[in-house]
């Protein structure tokens, strides 16, 4: 008798627990649905509804969550479903989530591959750029066949190739204050995988205005950084960096270099953080920052400040609205362009102190006695250089003027007395060469001239086979 009573109690208890579990799951789903509908109300429509993307959560009458997964889904994502801390609910959350990835470069490549593979229901990709050969060492989502084509198209097709059951939305355009609200409002989570400081402020402000969590990653050289902004009481980008850095502190990959796998590591971690947020599992990297240093193999996770009450974007008296966001001039604020490809063109010298790469070529062909000083850093010079050029990096020029004098004397030794050898200066793009000539004019080399546009113009206008990097 006692045993049966006990069984009965146990049975009732199990029933209650099962019902409780089921109700909790329904509650989560209803809350998610409320979020979706609220977004629709604010933004005048949601992609999933407009374009008939499947929404497994419409089957509200079914209590078993796994019934919303198709047999193919269950097989495809089985290793996720087997994780007790992720399971069916985590996967269902992912399938109905939407994530926007801004930038399909070094960070965006691995992030997109993982997001597509793991079954994020809708992925948006924003990038205005085209695939170039010198991207492929790190932007692993692209392949040689897509060189010259849109990165967004290339990335979207790679994602489709991995998972044809998810939706990919292509935005082959730059994110700016005019299109950002419209695009970002359609997604649950945003990944900042961009390459410049202006866009980083823009994305953060946009996420604050729209209330979206932002997974922000950055990589350069041999280091990477990662954090989640504007999520669970954490800071936004402006809380941490209220004033932009000086332009000279903003290095980029095309000038400073980057070991391909470094953005790969950070991009993977961005995917992980976005997956955690979208599936509501784990502790997001909010209020903390991960610092990755590849050479010593060190990862630091540090505690950063929380949301700042004085922040102009997310603080107590913040004045940022949709309108002020749209009229904010980010390039002026940061003194940096929206693209890391736009470079300041220096114009320091009078025309008489400059020659074109074609003119320099004529001078070489005539056999004109001259000295060519290459002021690039030594490791640049090692990549490729012009014949007989003398490498005196700009930073060392001051202490090596004697070497220029000696080289000029050697050139002048065969000339009639009173004749002079010319002095030309070259660099990669034609900015440092101007700084060098400007300096040389003041220290006893009044006839020094720079080659306009540097080795880039040499490769473009004179010798197309000259290796560019």
């Amino acid at each position, binding site marked *: 008798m006692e045993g049966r009573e006990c069984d009965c109690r146990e049975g009732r208890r199990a029933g209650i627990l099962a019902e409780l579990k089921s109700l909790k799951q329904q509650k989560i789903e209803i809350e998610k649905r409320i979020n979706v509908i609220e977004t629709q109300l604010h933004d005048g429509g949601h992609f999933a509804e407009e374009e008939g993307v499947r929404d497994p959560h419409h089957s509200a009458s079914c209590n078993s969550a796994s019934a919303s997964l198709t047999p193919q889904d269950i097989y495809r994502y089985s290793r996720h479903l087997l994780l007790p801390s992720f399971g069916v609910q985590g996967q269902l959350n992912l399938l109905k989530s939407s994530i926007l990835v801004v*930038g399909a*470069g*070094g*960070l*965006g490549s691995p992030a997109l591959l993982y997001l597509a593979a793991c079954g994020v229901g809708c992925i948006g990709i924003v990038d205005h750029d085209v695939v170039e050969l010198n991207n492929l060492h790190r932007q692993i989502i692209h392949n040689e066949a897509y060189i010259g084509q849109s990165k967004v198209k290339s990335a979207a097709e790679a994602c489709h190739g991995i998972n044809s059951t998810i939706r990919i939305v292509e935005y082959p355009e730059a994110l700016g204050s005019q299109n950002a609200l419209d695009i970002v409002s359609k997604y649950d989570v945003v990944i900042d*995988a*961009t*390459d*410049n*400081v202006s866009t*980083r402020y823009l994305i953060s402000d946009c996420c604050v205005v729209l209330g979206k969590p932002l997974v922000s*990653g*950055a*990589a*350069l*050289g041999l*280091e*990477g*950084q990662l954090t989640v902004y504007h999520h669970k009481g954490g800071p936004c980008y402006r809380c*941490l*960096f*209220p*004033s*932009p*850095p*000086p332009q*000279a*502190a*903003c*290095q*980029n*990959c095309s000038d*400073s270099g*980057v070991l391909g796998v470094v*953005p790969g590591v*950070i991009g993977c971690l961005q995917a992980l953080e976005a997956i955690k947020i979208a599936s509501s599992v784990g502790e997001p990297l909010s209020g903390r*920052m991960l*610092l990755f*240093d590849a050479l010593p193999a060190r990862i*630091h*996770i*540090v*505690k*950063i*400040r929380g949301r700042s009450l004085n922040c102009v974007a997310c603080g107590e008296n913040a004045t940022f609205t949709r309108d002020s966001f749209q009229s904010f001039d980010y390039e002026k604020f940061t003194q940096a362009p929206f693209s*890391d490809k736009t470079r300041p063109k220096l114009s320091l010298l009078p025309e008489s102190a400059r020659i074109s790469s074609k003119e320099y070529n004529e001078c070489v062909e005539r056999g004109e006695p001259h000295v060519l000083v290459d002021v690039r850093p030594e490791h640049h010079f090692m990549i490729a250089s012009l014949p007989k050029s003398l490498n005196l990096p700009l930073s060392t020029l001051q202490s090596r003027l004697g070497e220029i004098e000696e080289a000029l004397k050697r050139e002048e030794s065969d000339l009639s007395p009173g004749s002079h050898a010319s002095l030309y200066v070259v660099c990669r793009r034609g900015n440092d060469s101007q700084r060098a000539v400007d300096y040389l004019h003041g220290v006893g080399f009044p006839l020094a001239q720079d080659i306009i546009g540097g080795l880039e113009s040499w490769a473009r206008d004179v010798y197309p086979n000259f290796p560019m990097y």
Partner: protein
Amino acid sequence: MRLTIEFGGGLELLFQSVKIHQVDVPTKTKGGQLTMKDLLTWVSDNLLKERPEMFIKGETVRPGILVLINDCDWELCGQLDATLEEKDAIIFISTLHGG
């Protein structure tokens, strides 16, 4: 006071490309206190080798540098007024923008 000072995110280029510096910073009085403000002055005078404007602006670090005392944002421990203790580890890291 013996401290470990670390520079990252490209800031090490201003410090002869050395990231980790084990230093012994004198305090004003024997056994006296050392604040972050004192440390910044000492670093500028003793470790900083070039382009000081890339490290210091006014009396604090330039915008875009995170300062961490024992892996914690200095904003949470008093910023310039934070007092340091023997064997503390201070990190100066420039924020990255590349990708």
